[in-house]
């Protein structure tokens, strides 16, 4: 009896994992697709952002749908029991939204070409229609760590964009990216980081800062 009971619990757990894998796999596909479109920013002049951002937003819409599916399924189980399975993919999804918004998308009020908007954790929660930083109940949500790790990925992409925007002749964009990355860097300094994954990733911001400083220096010559 003990055996049967343990066995059926383990099997139940395995089937939950399998179901999660499928949803996460679907999310992964939408994220990869959206990242692919986003990567065109490096060869797209700002004047052509409008139609391209529309495509990115379509990709994000699909991500949002799948995150909804994930949230309602995962909320049936202890959140942190399975969180490690989707956290990487969710961070990537968050990154796509953050980058899209920074470049002028995901907003009624900004015009394409207006860049520099940083979504807050709450904004990201609203876009994906899920709670954030939950503490009072055990359900699906976006954690602070996930938001911050997503943000760090965006920094890498923007540093690269600073280089390419100079090549495209858009020096102003490079300068704006530089000041944004430096602000973020100052922000991250405020955190008390422990020896965890966040700390390791934050180090990469330093390289980004150095890179954009070099670009701005080159432009000043």
């Amino acid at each position, binding site marked *: 009896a003990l055996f049967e009971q*343990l066995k059926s619990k*383990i099997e139940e757990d395995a089937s939950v994992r399998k179901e999660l894998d499928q949803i996460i796999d679907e999310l992964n596909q939408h994220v990869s697709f959206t990242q692919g479109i986003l990567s065109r920013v490096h060869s797209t002049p700002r004047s052509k952002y409008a139609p391209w951002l529309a495509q990115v937003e379509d990709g994000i819409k699909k991500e949002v749908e799948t995150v909804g599916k994930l949230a309602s399924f995962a909320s049936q189980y*202890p959140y*942190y*029991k399975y*969180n490690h399975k989707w956290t990487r993919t969710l961070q990537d999804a968050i990154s796509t939204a953050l980058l899209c918004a920074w470049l002028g998308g995901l907003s009624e009020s900004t015009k394409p070409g207006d860049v520099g908007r940083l979504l807050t*954790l709450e904004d990201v929660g609203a876009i994906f229609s899920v709670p954030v*930083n939950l503490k009072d109940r*055990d359900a699906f949500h976006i954690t602070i760590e996930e938001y911050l790790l997503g943000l760090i990925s965006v920094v890498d992409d923007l540093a690269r964009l600073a280089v390419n925007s100079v090549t495209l002749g858009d020096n102003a964009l490079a300068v704006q990216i530089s000041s944004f990355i430096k602000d973020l860097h100052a*922000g991250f300094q405020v955190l008390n980081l422990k020896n965890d994954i966040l700390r390791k990733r934050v180090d990469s911001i330093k390289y980004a800062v150095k890179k954009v400083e070099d670009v701005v220096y080159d432009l000043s010559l």
Partner: protein
Amino acid sequence: TPMFERLRDELDEHHDRRERIVKLSRDITALSKKIIFSLQRVRKIEPQLPKNIQDEVDARLAEIAKLLAALAPEIQGLNRYRYSRSLMCLEELVEALTFAHYLKTQTLIRYEDLCATVEDLTRQGIAAVATSSEDQVMTDAADGPKQADATKPDPPATVSLTQDDYLYGIFDLTGEMMRFATTTLALTGVLAGSESSTSGDEPRTILQDMHDLGSFFEMLPVGGGSRFQWEKKLEVTRQSVQKVERLGYDWII
């Protein structure tokens, strides 16, 4: 940066809680190991542990109970699984409790029964802390505010065991059984087990119990999370079973 300041506070709260948990966990682990150490001085399976050993075990359990009482409010709801990697102490506690149970009854305690035992322990700890807080007129209030808070809600929060705590604790139990079988055979010349007198059934040795536990794990599907971890534990269990097999063989020859 105001945003970052707010996030910092949230993260700090999390890190502080984790540090408190890690500390409690370390203490519970150490006490559990001491219990196991005492239990390894037992020489035969019988319903009553020798008095001196039972006293040692009881004393350690009373300390563990207080630590569990302090731990309980930190790991409710969302936080039970959030900090599960800092809660290895629970496996160790399972190991100690199931080993004590085995030495008394030659049986494996059930998951539910063990959960009840641990909840009970937590409640005893809460009661003990409450009493001693009164006695000491809050002298240790400085580092105990959480404990004081935790006594207010009704019913008080208790520590729950996950199925993985139970299973991984049992894996480790097989190692203790192997050690017990080895020392008792060496010191008494007899393979541990039930007295043939107990009931009229055939006498049952620890070797059979090890075989049953071994087959139990062999037949279970791979449990929770890391397959690698599971396989490693299973392999250790296999070796323990085979060491006891060898004991049985050498005893017969």
